[in-house]
């Protein structure tokens, strides 16, 4: 069995480069296409390439001084205050305010449950926020996170806030900036504390060793006390003065830490080869839910009726389609004749009224409170029209 050694290969290629320098009349080794001078030891485990004398690998660059190139201006204090609002694990950026678990419960039902399910339990196709078993192994690792579905029917590791997220700061930061999904940044500071408190309660997170109840209040001081169950579930350790060096060390041993191949060329014995025969796993249940469908045909496209989007349709697409476009959210699906027959039995006035005031899992005006009542009426008309039986 002949196994090519990578070091030998590299040595060979260096030798090739050296000999070719003669052919190329003493030009720099970096002029051979695809062979560049490099240095090992980058933080990601790879190489870096020098920028020297106007050359960077295959590229030339302008190596005139850029000293004094200086555009833009200093941000004002208010501009910094408006944008420098990220929330860090040490509490930097946590806003003033506080929220009750019970208020969070109410807000969650109105603003979050349509996507994340009742009590954060998922099931609507959007991320599951709560649940999962937080029980730990003697080494401190959450037991269910060691689940590996190597056989059919095995249980998946469940990555929820309670079992997976390392920091509580991440949760409140994301809720404030990115939630609710369809109209982010619309919640007050008290609201974000309340919703965070509710989710932490659902995930059985302790503060001062105490479980949260409906009357528990969350604020800056309390949030900073939280230790998440899976706080130590991540590596390499990125915190502290050695954080970056820990990452570098980790990726410098890729064979051990993330896996690596070997450059065998002949009669290679992989565990997946039984004797001389490779074991082949074929597609079992092919996923064919693909849009648009697969084809490589070169033909003329089907004629598309020219159609102008009405104002109502545009508002529907921007605001309502998220829930009314598919049956995943439990809302009547636009185009479903039967579902909308049921809706319109209540009478048009009542349907418009419900859309304005909110109903079931839908907040008032679907959460888009800047819509006027007459705009909501236009949208409802459009949705009903689009759900009539085609003649």
């Amino acid at each position, binding site marked *: 069995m002949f196994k090519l050694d990578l070091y030998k290969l590299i040595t060979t290629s260096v030798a090739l480069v050296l000999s070719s320098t003669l052919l190329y009349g003493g030009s720099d080794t970096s002029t051979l296409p695809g062979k560049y001078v490099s240095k090992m030891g980058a933080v990601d485990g790879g190489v870096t390439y020098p920028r020297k004398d106007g050359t960077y690998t295959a590229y030339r660059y302008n190596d005139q001084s850029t000293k004094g190139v200086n555009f833009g*201006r200093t*941000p004002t204090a208010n501009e910094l205050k408006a944008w420098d609002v990220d929330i860090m694990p040490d509490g930097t950026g946590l806003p003033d305010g506080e929220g009750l678990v019970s208020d969070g419960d109410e807000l969650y039902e109105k603003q979050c449950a349509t*996507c994340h399910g009742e009590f954060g339990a998922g099931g609507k*196709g959007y991320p599951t926020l709560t649940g999962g078993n937080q029980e730990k192994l003697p080494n401190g690792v959450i037991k269910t996170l060691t689940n590996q579905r190597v056989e059919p029917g095995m249980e998946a590791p469940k990555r929820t806030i309670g079992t997976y997220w390392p920091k509580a700061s991440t949760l409140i930061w994301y809720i404030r900036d990115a939630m609710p999904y369809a109209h982010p940044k619309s919640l007050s500071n008290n609201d974000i504390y309340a919703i965070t408190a509710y989710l932490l309660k659902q995930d059985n997170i302790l503060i001062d060793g105490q479980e949260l109840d409906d009357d528990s209040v969350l604020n800056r001081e309390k949030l900073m006390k939280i230790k998440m169950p899976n706080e130590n*579930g991540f590596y390499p350790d990125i915190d502290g003065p050695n954080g970056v060096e820990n990452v570098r060390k980790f990726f410098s041993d890729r064979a051990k830490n*993330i896996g690596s191949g070997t450059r*065998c060329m*002949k009669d290679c014995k992989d565990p*997946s080869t039984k004797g001389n025969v490779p074991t082949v796993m074929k597609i079992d249940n092919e996923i064919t839910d693909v849009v648009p469908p697969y084809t490589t045909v070169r033909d003329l496209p089907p004629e598309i009726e020219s159609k102008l989007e009405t104002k109502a349709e545009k508002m529907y697409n921007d605001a309502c389609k998220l829930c009314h476009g598919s049956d995943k959210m439990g809302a009547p699906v636009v185009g479903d004749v039967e579902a909308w027959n049921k809706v319109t039995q209540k009478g048009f006035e009542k349907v418009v009224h419900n859309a304005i005031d909110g109903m079931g899992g839908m907040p008032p005006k679907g959460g888009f409170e800047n819509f006027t009542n007459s705009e909501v009426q236009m949208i409802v008309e459009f949705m009903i029209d689009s759900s009539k039986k085609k003649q």
Partner: protein
Amino acid sequence: MDKTFITEELNSLSRRDFFKKTASVSAVAAAAILSPSSLLADDENIVHHTQWGTTLGNELNEHPYGLPSKYEHNVVRRTSSLMSSAGDMHAAVSMTPLHELEGIITPNGLHFTRTHNGIAQIDPNKYRLMIHGLVEKPIVLTLEQLKRYPSESRIHFLECPSNGAGEWKGPQFNSLQFLKGMMSASEWTGVRLKTILDELGLKPTAKWMLAEGSDGSEMGRSVPVEKVLDDAMVVWAQNGEALRPEQGYPVRLLLPGWEANLCVKWLKRLEFSDKPWYAKEETSKYTALMPSGKAIQHFYALEVNSVITSPCPEKPWSDLVGGELVEIEGLAWSGHGTITNVDISLDGGKNWVEAKLKGLVLPKAWTRFSYMHKYVKEPLLLQSRAVDDSKNVQPTVNQEKAIMGVEGVYHRNSICTWEVTLKGEVNNVQVRSI
């Protein structure tokens, strides 16, 4: 997913037998090409005038911004409701049709797209970039001011670290587009971040940078300053024109070779600190859960990787009769450096031969490889294996699985296998022991 393990008897020909056999078949093929012309039917596309040769073509100003031929309408990004939240196309991913691409550049309209809160539509006149934190001189820039900085253009791939994430437990999609299409490559133009920072004066305590987007999800990630000062860029153009909205118009971060998720789109703010941030996309997502139950948190570079693009399930060899000399072609890439070698196996990884690299061979860029194959009508298990200048060798499925397990979601770079059937059809399979 149920797993059935099918063991395939492959022709275990030695390479010498193999070439002896192909030589005799190719002699037959050559005879067909040289058969007397009197036996062949005329092609009416040649012997008659064409429609387009006998009429006036379209006016040149019909499309001030040009469009592909109408006949290319099936060359598009594709998606699947399984790659979204509840079929919602605001938080989803669309795949580049790799089987239709040539060379090492992706046309802008075909660049794969991942969004967490829809495609932000930014008014460039209202766009601002803020750089602050541990710098001597914090700044805000308008788009015009940013573009005043001296520019560089570089060709790099961008790959979502969940490219192929559905395949950890076995093959799922019979398609190159869905197996590896969460990546694209472009010539990006912008300014090196170091050029800006040299003027702003980075404080020695700055170890990390937060990059934050201005879309509804305010996507943020922590980046070590070392990368920022090496080859990071703030880019405003792709393939010679403004970034597409799907790619972060008007400005995105580019960290060559690193997770595309780190290359924050619709870039709004860069802040420097002595600590990392623990943003949502570097804790709850984009972390790789290992069999130990612990997860790799900061996972930056996309590892050495390759895939054969011709043949592939979408572009099979079913039109070949046997005896043809045909090119096996593919793409290799590494976020750790530059591709140095690509090997090809026809027998599922038992024996390998070295392919040729062709075209531009650039760091952290797609690299084309080529191998001329004498096609014989018989089953094959085609594989490619890439090597880079950081001493990385692409692992087999088993080698990768032994360390990573099957629940990590991200950073899957093991060797791909195309099963070529007797009829020349091509299927996505995996050579693996379990």
